C-alpha cells in the first residue's frame, strides 16, 4: 500500500493539535522542559491573562483557560522552537483552546450567531471605505469607554485588535496565530476598526462631542 503524505503527517497533526504540524519535534529532558517553561513561557503570563480576560469576562473561567493553555503549552513543548516568538505561540494555543473548549460551551448562542454573520462578510475586500472620526473625538475618550467598545466586538474582531494594536504583532505573525491568510488579517482588522469607530462615535456623541 502506498503511504501518502497525509498519512505521514496526520498522526503528527493530531498529536500536535493546536501547534503547527510542520514544526520539528525536539527531544528534551524534564529539566530542559522545565527551564524552557520558566524562561520563555511564564514571562508572558500577564499578556496571556489580558487576552484570556478579553475573551472570557468571567474571572474563574479566564483562569481555567489560562491554566489549560499553559498545560497544553507544556505538553507540546517538544514542538516549540527555542528562542522563537513564545508569546505568539502561547496566544495561538490560548485562542485554539478557547475556540475548542469554551466557545462551544458558550451560554450565549445568540452571540455566536451574531459572530458568524460577521464572518460571512469578513473576507470581502470590496469595502475598504474608512469610517472617519476627527482626532479630537478620540482624545476625549477615556480608557473605560474604549475597553467597553472592544468588549462589544465579536470575538474574532476583538482578538485582531488586541493582536495588532495592543501587542503590536505584524500581519504575517497574526496570520499564523489565528490561521487565516494575510488578506483576511487586513480586511478583518479594517472592519474591526470601523466597528470600533462607530461604537466610539456613539459614546462621544452621548457626551456631547461631535464627529
Amino acid at each position, binding site marked *: 500500500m502506498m503511504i501518502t503524505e497525509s498519512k505521514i503527517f496526520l498522526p503528527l497533526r493530531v498529536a500536535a493539535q493546536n501547534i503547527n504540524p510542520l514544526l520539528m519535534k525536539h527531544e528534551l529532558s*524534564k529539566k530542559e*522542559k*522545565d527551564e524552557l*517553561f*520558566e524562561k520563555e513561557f*511564564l514571562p508572558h*503570563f*500577564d499578556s496571556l*491573562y*489580558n487576552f484570556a*480576560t478579553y475573551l472570557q469576562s468571567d474571572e474563574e473561567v479566564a*483562569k481555567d483557560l*489560562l*491554566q489549560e493553555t*499553559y*498545560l497544553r503549552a*507544556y*505538553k507540546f513543548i517538544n514542538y516549540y522552537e527555542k528562542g522563537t516568538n513564545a508569546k505568539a505561540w502561547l496566544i495561538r494555543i490560548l485562542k485554539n483552546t478557547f475556540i475548542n473548549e469554551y466557545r462551544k460551551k458558550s451560554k450565549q448562542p445568540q452571540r455566536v450567531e451574531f459572530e458568524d454573520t460577521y464572518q460571512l462578510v469578513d473576507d470581502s475586500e470590496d469595502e*475598504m471605505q*474608512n469610517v*472617519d*472620526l*476627527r*482626532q479630537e473625538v*478620540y*482624545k476625549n*475618550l*477615556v*480608557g*473605560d469607554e*474604549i*475597553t467597553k467598545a*472592544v468588549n462589544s466586538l465579536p470575538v474574532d474582531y476583538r482578538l485582531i*485588535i*488586541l493582536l*495588532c*494594536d*495592543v501587542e*503590536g504583532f*505584524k*500581519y504575517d505573525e497574526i496570520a499564523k496565530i489565528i490561521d487565516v491568510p494575510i488578506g483576511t488579517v*487586513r480586511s478583518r*482588522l*479594517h472592519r474591526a*476598526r470601523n466597528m*470600533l*469607530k462607530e461604537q466610539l462615535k456613539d459614546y462621544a456623541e452621548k457626551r456631547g462631542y461631535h464627529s
Partner: protein
Amino acid sequence: MQKNEVIIHKQIFTEMDCNEVAQNLQLLVDDELPDETIQEIRMHLENCGGCIEKFEAEMAFKEVLREKICKKCAPGAWLEDVRASVLQVA
C-alpha cells in the same frame, strides 16, 4: 493629469493619487508597506491636506487604542497556581 515623478538612486517613484493613498492608508499606519510605496505616498501627502488629515486621524486612532485599551495584570497568586499545577502534572 500627469503624475509627479522623482528619481532616487536611479529608481523612478510615481506619486499616488488620493484614491490609491486611501487604499493603502491602513497598511501605512500599520507599517506594512515596502519603502518604495511609502515614498510614493509621501510624495502625495506633501501636496494634499485632505489626505494628510486622514492619515493623521488614523495614526491618532491607532495610538489611542494602544494607549487606552486597558491592560490588566494577573492577580499575584495566579502565576504561582498555574506554575504549580503545570509542573505537578508534567
